[in-house]
């Protein structure tokens, strides 16, 4: 049962404190610190479920890799490790800016916090753009995106490049190993489900950004920022595992 003071401030009353300073913890908790600790425990449990979810994909990856090593070799080589590496750097930087925003909130540097959240969002968006424009699009369709306009137009088609699609949708004409469709299934399942989590993470960050603008978070209350940070770090961590397993097989 929360008791909000709804009476208007009388003459000489102090200026209304920001929202984070007026935060009332849930009435079933004795202190706000108890609530924060519980939220952290709960969120780590949730992250464990996410790890187990991806565990299924990694399990399938390892099973089929041991069955069809040649296909895995060929598949990994047809991935461009430079784009993957760039995406890795992008996510690592975004994890840094996310952590920086948490630190800024803890020290009540609201503008700096919001700036870092925004940069994190931009990095997340950059990850998705690189993934979609430079990896998914050319592999699936053969259409390459070239912002330098070296081929005249923004998009240009490369014959015999596309068709690298999962399972029965596979139409790439130059595969040497018969199990290539399976490699592409694992690639798309893993990276697409990861990309979905990037989108979810970005939605969380956007919400925190908007609420930070309204003063919801400060040194005494920043639970949601911390939880969003944890989620974003997990998204980053999953990519750290996906990247070498997919891109760096020799």
């Amino acid at each position, binding site marked *: 049962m929360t008791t909000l003071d709804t009476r208007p401030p009388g003459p000489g009353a102090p200026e209304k404190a920001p929202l984070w300073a007026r935060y009332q913890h849930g009435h079933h908790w004795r202190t706000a610190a108890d609530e924060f600790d519980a939220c952290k425990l709960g969120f780590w449990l949730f992250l464990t479920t996410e790890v187990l979810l991806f565990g299924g994909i990694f399990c399938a990856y390892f099973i089929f890799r041991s069955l069809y090593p040649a*296909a895995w070799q060929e598949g990994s080589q047809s991935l461009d490790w430079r784009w993957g590496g760039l995406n890795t750097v992008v996510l690592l930087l975004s994890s840094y800016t996310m952590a920086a925003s948490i630190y800024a909130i803890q020290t009540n540097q609201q503008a700096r916090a919001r700036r870092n959240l925004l940069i994190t969002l931009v990095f997340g968006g950059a990850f998705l753009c690189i993934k979609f424009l430079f990896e998914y699009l050319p592999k699936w369709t053969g259409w390459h995106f070239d912002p330098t306009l070296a081929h005249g137009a923004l998009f240009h088609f490369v014959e015999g490049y596309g068709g690298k699609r999962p399972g029965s949708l596979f139409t790439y004409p130059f595969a040497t190993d018969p199990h290539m469709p*399976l490699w592409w299934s694992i690639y798309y399942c893993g990276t697409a489900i990861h990309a979905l989590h990037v989108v979810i993470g970005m939605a969380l960050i956007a919400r925190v950004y908007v609420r930070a603008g309204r003063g919801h978070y400060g040194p005494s209350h920043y639970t949601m920022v911390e939880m969003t940070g944890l989620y974003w770090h997990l998204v980053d961590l999953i990519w750290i595992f996906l990247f070498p397993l997919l891109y760096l097989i020799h």
Partner: protein
Amino acid sequence: MSTHDVPHDSHDPRGLHDAHGHHASYLAPKETFWATVKDWATTVDHKKIGVMYLFAILFMFFLGGAAAMAVRLELWEPVRVVTSTTPSGTTTTEVTGQLFAADAEGTSIGPGNNVYNRIFTLHGAIMVFMVIIPSIPASLGNFFLPIMLGAKDVAFPRLNLLSWYVYLFGSIFAVTSIILGGVDTGWTFYTPYSTTTDAQHWRVVFMILGAFILGFSSILTGLNFVVTVHKLRAPGMGWFDMPLFVWAIYSAAVIQVLATPVIGITLMLLVFERVFRIGIFDPALGGDPVLYQHFFWFYSHPVVYVMILPGMGIINETIAVHSRKKIFGYRAIAFASLGIAAVSFLVWGHHMFTSMSELASTVFSALTFLVAIPTAVKVFNWIATLYKGSIAMNTPMLYTLIFLFLFSIGGLTGLPLGTLSTDLHLHDSYFVVAHFHYVMMGGTMMGLMAGIHHWWPKMFGKMYAEKPAMIAALIVFVGFNITFFSQFFLGTQGMPRRYASYVDEFQFLHQVSTVGSWLLLLGFLLHAGVFIHSLTQGRPAPQNPWGGLTFEWEAASPPIEHNFEHEPICRHGPYDFESTVPPGWKPEDYPLPPATAPVPQGVVVARH
């Protein structure tokens, strides 16, 4: 209740106090009907959420039960194709004994069984995903876990409400699939059939998505409970002062959190396989259908312990209270619960002995025997608790005894299934069907019935009619045994499961089983009648009708909105019947046994 009767009090805008200033019960309606509906629809009160789950689960139980009645009706007679030649020479073929007409495709036995296949899939999917997995944790667990810990609510009340709505949403997906014609794959959705069956895409996908969404409800509930047990215990309550019901719910919650994501990814991959043919379960593309079975059972085996552990948790409570005796071997039972949860992750292969190598099968068989040990420890401890107890013969105790009997049979019949040599004969036969019905229904559902009757006075503030309830319990018990014991014989004699028809020699036992199912229906209808009568005309319940010692008996019947008037402090163990007067009882009504030895210096005997 018109708005004129209830004074709108600006100091009590949420109407938590009644006219005398006492706190109102959580069931008290609001000023208008729609205000009450809105209150229940947006509540974060674990009690209301638990009650809503309870009624949804009981409703789904009747739905799944209706499907079971249909299955048993079909099996009354085998399907016979009778060819007769009239004197004029024309030959007519007639199909008899087939209750569910074939599809438009034809009248032959094959496609006709499609309807039967959809009905048993419906039965399995509803019972597993919408009834048994959430049954005790979501209903009684939600209601009583916080109260038993002395808390005002679970750790994340809003997440609890989300779990409820996700459960509804997932159930809607599944029911939609059924309305659109259902799915004929069996609740296990084995590949390659589930990815190639001619049931339309969207029916299969909807059913699988329904199960996927329901998984989220399970995960969030489990997460909530784990954090609640860690962080919201009352002052003075250490881990070993908690009621064993809490230990059981906690162990089940740990499994829910760890295992459910695996079925999540499995079902997601199954949907991709079905819709995009990605090939990981398709041999033509290099995939492996047995991989699906491994993924599926990696979750589905631990989940059977999610089903049974809370049932066992209830038995701890009812057996202690209704024999007024301390549970024998508290720590053994607590650690056994955790042990079962841990070992449950290691034995999934015993569902797939015929799909694996001999070495793998041997390892899984050995591990399966291991999980029987903590289970047996619990059963022995319960019997030891009953010994020299002051046993009250009422519905909760009756269901407890029924549980002990039926679950023991179920557990023991798991052994020939876990043994490789006998399993080769019994795999996919009616023996398996009988085994899992004994543990799931004879175990969990009987535990649920025990718990509902034990806690009914607390939840609804009304007593139920004891004699009719006990008669209903006996009818359920007899009906259950007739229905399912006959199925053990059917299984050993070779009747395969999921078959709509059979050879003539099995007909008698099938008919016995079908008659048993009618008795079961009668028993449960009687229970429904007892519940409705209690809610409408039941005697008001006292605070502590059974003399329990756990915190829920310190709360009012039914509890007020924030459970307790003052935060309870844990001053005695949950089963210290020898030394504690139950809350709400007058000491003169509860003579404690005389001390057989002088109390040592400095020891305080707690008198509540």
